[in-house]
């Protein structure tokens, strides 16, 4: 097991660091050492600011909206009602579909001329004229975020549902007997007990969403440059697609990626722990 993880995770990680200090020709042949040049090149890349800001918006918006919606959805799906099985199955569908299929589907749904979304919203009189969801700069990111949320909610809701299931019924009964109203019981009893599940799903979501590639790659296909790229698609473009194709620079960007997500997760865990020690 360790050999497998070593071969596919650790070794490429080392290789990545090695590549980040090398100088490469356009065909990917190593010409020699570049020292820290690749790193400074990435740091001085004109698109870096935009890319970092996009990443921050993408990750925080998708994770925050996903967690909020999933909290409600998990609570709802834990109740008994007619047709619950069907609803649970329906919620699983975006999880079962691959990200790239969902992304391809949304390129058509969002399309300015041929997309069904504009027709639908215009029939409902929500909008008066079609919106260019993926071409209009102010709509591109929100449109991608909506797809990101749709595909992240199923897994998150199921982890939270599992968390709710792990809470024994007696706890809720005790709260009711002590005279807690539904909202109070949720805030004081259910929510604190749900913390482990919430923590797990938040951290896994942060990592998945940060590393998420197909949605931005596919939906952002039309737009030139790096206007809507996150650090992940930026890195991939540097290695395989852009005009200034550069393996070494892409590897340096890859190292930054791993460090960034590490810092984000540690910061988040710190923040949560700090709240835990808070006497209130």
């Amino acid at each position, binding site marked *: 097991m360790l050999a497998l993880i070593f071969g596919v995770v650790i070794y490429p990680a080392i290789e990545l660091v090695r590549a980040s200090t090398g100088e490469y020709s356009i065909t990917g042949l190593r010409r020699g050492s570049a020292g820290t040049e690749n790193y400074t090149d990435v740091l001085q890349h004109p698109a870096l600011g935009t890319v970092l800001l996009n990443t921050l918006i993408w990750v925080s918006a998708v994770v925050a909206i996903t967690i909020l919606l999933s909290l409600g959805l998990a609570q709802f799906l834990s109740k008994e009602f007619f047709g619950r099985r069907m609803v649970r199955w*329906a919620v699983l*569908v975006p999880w079962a579909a691959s990200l790239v*299929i969902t992304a391809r589907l949304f390129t058509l749904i969002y399309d300015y001329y041929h997309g069904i979304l504009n027709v639908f919203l215009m029939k409902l009189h929500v909008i008066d004229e079609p919106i260019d969801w993926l071409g209009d700069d102010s709509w591109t990111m929100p449109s991608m975020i909506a797809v990101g949320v749709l595909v992240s909610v199923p897994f998150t809701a199921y982890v939270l549902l599992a968390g709710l299931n792990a809470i024994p019924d007696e706890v809720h009964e005790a709260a009711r007997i002590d005279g807690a109203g539904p909202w109070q019981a949720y805030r004081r009893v259910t929510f604190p007990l749900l913390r482990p599940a919430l923590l797990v799903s938040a951290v896994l979501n942060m990592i998945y969403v940060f590393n998420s590639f197909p949605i931005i790659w596919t939906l952002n296909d039309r737009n030139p440059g790096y206007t809507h790229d996150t650090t992940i698609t930026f890195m991939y473009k540097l290695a395989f697609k852009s005009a200034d194709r550069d393996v070494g620079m892409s*590897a340096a960007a*890859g190292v930054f990626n791993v460090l960034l997500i590490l810092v984000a997760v540690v910061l988040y865990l710190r923040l949560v722990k700090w709240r835990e020690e808070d006497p209130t």
Partner: protein
Amino acid sequence: MSLTWRRLRPVVLPLVGLLVAIVFLAPYFVMLLDSLRPGSEALASPPTFLPQNWQLDAYGEILGDSRFRNWLKTSLLVSLASTVIVILVAIPAAYFTARFKFPGRTAFLFLVLVTQMFAPTSLVVGIYREFFELSMVNTYGALILTNAAFNLAFAVWIMHGFFAALPKELEEASELDGNGRVGTMLRIMLPLTLPGVVTATIFTFIAVWNEYVVALTLMQDDDKKPLTVGISSYVTGYDQNWDQLFAASIVAIVPVVILFAVIEKHLVGGLTAGSVK
């Protein structure tokens, strides 16, 4: 709880449920409808909700397309092989770590987080270079090994919870009855932890089935691409066969949805035992 709510509840909850189901299903319903109309109709402006000419042609076309059959074959082969490797390695690993507590749960969680953090996307450049040096670019083996490695930790994580929940006395009794370690594991432990094994198997299979970025990078030979990568060539700048793209997508997701629906009941149990207890 008020009296009115008690009366409204059996009506309101299913209605909210219906609304939730519609929101989650609507995009995929659009996909189904678009697979049942000519590709040119998907490009009508303004588009119509329902197909004007219902047809099943796209399904016949993709099934008759040898490229599609190759992609399907790759997807099946890679998913099955990776899943078998993951399960064969993960069962003993999960059992071992659940019984002999030397690294502990925390180290475990950490291992999962690390392999997830170094998700394929951040490592894909390194992985490509590694397999390039081993001359394994465009081989099924490279894709199978990569997918197996990235799904291993999560599978161990889920199964660990199930093994840890079994009382030790059960094993001791079995060994007294003359079963060896392997016999105990196969005859006593495995049947009891089957829901965990099933959950881990399906999780792994689906994750590999839907994997995109590693396959996009490693499999440049058109015949060896999996479905996720291959189907994109139905809609390019020159070809606009949206009906074929979506028919292929339906073929790719319907089996997965059915798999998910079948294990849905175990899913919550699997996640509870593995991750959130």
